[in-house]
């Protein structure tokens, strides 16, 4: 009896240990404190800043979990109250590297970091997600997420992130390159420019119907081919030098990667809201 009780207790402990490893390897809010093991499912939503309700967190977890299961790429969201001394990019990279995110030997995945103070966000990509999430995809994702964050709609930002991740990963699985949806506003702006240009061209063509114009010059009445120069001097006065900073490349994992402090190559983009 005593023997079978010890066996049962050992079995329960073993099962609990396995569950802890497989289901909820909980990361730490500090980007550098925890060690990691790749390919172990990590909680995809870590709301340290408390932006989300329990129901919202659960819903986003479900969405991101399905992506992980379907496409073998980690997708995660983390919110923090501050970044400490790090930039949003460094924080996101370190958090990703040090908390066990990423699937496969190249630790493929994508993570959205949202900071409360300063109001910044960053999307970091790694492994094959570095290639899957092209510059255009990251730019589009930043645009949509930032629009939600500006209105303090954190839940909306997370669902936008999850939705675009699903779209990009789904397209990649089907062999399609992600193309951001066309903006109707841009089409109307182009058509308005075409309309204005058509009006200008028509007005110019109409003006040719009147060719009685006043002359302002008398060049054709100058004898001997025009002017005879008697003096010509080019006097150097002064020089002025201006300098403008070369714009830094922002966003986009397509070819604009960087190496994190953990030694991994990351891509992505972000900004402030």
């Amino acid at each position: 009896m005593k023997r079978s009780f010890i066996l049962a207790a050992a079995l329960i402990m073993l099962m609990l240990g396995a569950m802890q490893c497989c289901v909820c390897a909980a990361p730490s809010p500090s980007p550098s404190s925890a060690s990691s093991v790749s390919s172990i499912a990590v909680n995809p939503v870590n709301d340290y800043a408390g932006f989300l309700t329990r129901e919202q967190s659960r819903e986003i977890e479900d969405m991101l979990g399905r992506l992980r299961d379907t496409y073998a790429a980690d997708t995660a969201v983390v919110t923090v109250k501050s970044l400490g001394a790090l930039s949003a990019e460094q924080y996101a990279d370190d958090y990703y590297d040090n908390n066990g995110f990423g699937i496969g030997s190249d630790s493929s995945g994508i993570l959205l970091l949202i900071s409360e103070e300063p109001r910044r966000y960053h999307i970091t990509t790694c492994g094959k997600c570095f290639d899957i999430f092209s510059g255009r995809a990251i730019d589009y994702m930043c645009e949509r997420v930032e629009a939600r964050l500006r209105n303090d709609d954190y839940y909306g930002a997370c669902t936008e992130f999850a939705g675009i991740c699903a779209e990009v990963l789904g397209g990649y699985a089907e062999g399609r390159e992600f193309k951001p949806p066309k903006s109707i506003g841009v089409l109307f702006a182009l058509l308005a420019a075409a309309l204005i240009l058509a009006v200008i061209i028509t007005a110019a063509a109409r003006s040719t119907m009147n060719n009685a114009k006043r002359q302002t010059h008398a060049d054709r009445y100058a004898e001997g081919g025009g002017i005879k120069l008697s003096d010509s001097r080019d006097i150097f006065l002064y020089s002025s030098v201006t300098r403008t900073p070369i714009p830094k490349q922002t966003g986009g994992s397509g070819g604009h990667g960087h190496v994190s402090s953990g030694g991994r190559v990351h891509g992505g983009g972000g900004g402030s809201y």
Partner: protein
Amino acid sequence: MLKTAAFWVLDMDEIKSYKCPCCGAPLVFSGEKQKLRCGSCGAELEADAVRGFAEADGRVNGASKYDWDTYEPREFGRTETGGVSAYSCPSCGAEISGGPEMGASICPYCGNAAIVKRSFEGAYMPDYIIPFRIDKSSAMKRLKENAAKKLFIPKAFRDETRLREVTGMYVPFWMFDCDVEGEAAFRGVRTHVWSDSRYNYTRTDHYMLYRSGSAVFRNVPVDASQKAEDAYMDAIEPFDCTEAMDFDTAYLSGYLADKYDVSAEESISRANERIKRSFADMLRSTTAGYAAVSAGGERVEFSNGRIRYALMPVWWLNVKYRGKMYRFAMNGQTGKAVGDYPADRVKLAAFFGCTFAVLGAAAAALWYFI
């Protein structure tokens, strides 16, 4: 500490201070750099450059001089006016003359068909005349061809009935001859661009370009009739004055002739303006090699200015279309025709529609593929 002192130059017993060519603030001499420095904009200049700039700037901003002889009108003699008839238009008030065989004529200025014959008076004898070389049938043909080339011309307007009433008339002009000497200053810039790992740099070198020269202008025409609009008479230029003849009333045979009602003195300002502008542009054309050139003042001196009175051949056509009078003029020597043609609204709308369709399709394609 930077030692500075006001920059003064003793020049012909006169003490001068110099201003910055960039912003106009006073320049101060920096003993350390041996240059003049502007305390306002920070520009640094060599003393020779400042002196050259100030000298040229003073010259080109001096007053221009326009020397014209006074025109003395010549009266017609009795024998010269014997074959000339005078007419007046009761509609527009034009006072015109013509050969004795002129029958019923149409006023070339307003198209009125009932001009009135009256006694010849008040006209002065022109110095020379350029006879008509384009006859009436050629003039009509050219005007029709010219109208047909216009993109939006209404079909009804091209009907022969509308384009048949052309009238040949000599239009009075003042002809200006003069020699011009002058100078102009321009501001020229050259740019040089380079980069390092953090910044793009642009160095802009500023220059003053001083030019002086001379030119001879002959037979610059200014029309001397108020009713002959300047735009029309300017647009049918040039007239070839090598074909000019001494005036004889025989050239009026079969044609009308207007007399001047804008005096030579009143026309001088237009001649001055055209000649001066051309002269300045000729000087400017010698400033190649700069990224941008802007005018910095010019001064001209006219000499040997001579004014003559001449009659130039012009074919006139007035066409009433949909309640509006359209006027056309043609150089009776060269056949160059000008005018204000009516535009067909349907053709205009179709042109606009096609243009917008093409541009709109291009815009939509751009939006779709990019």
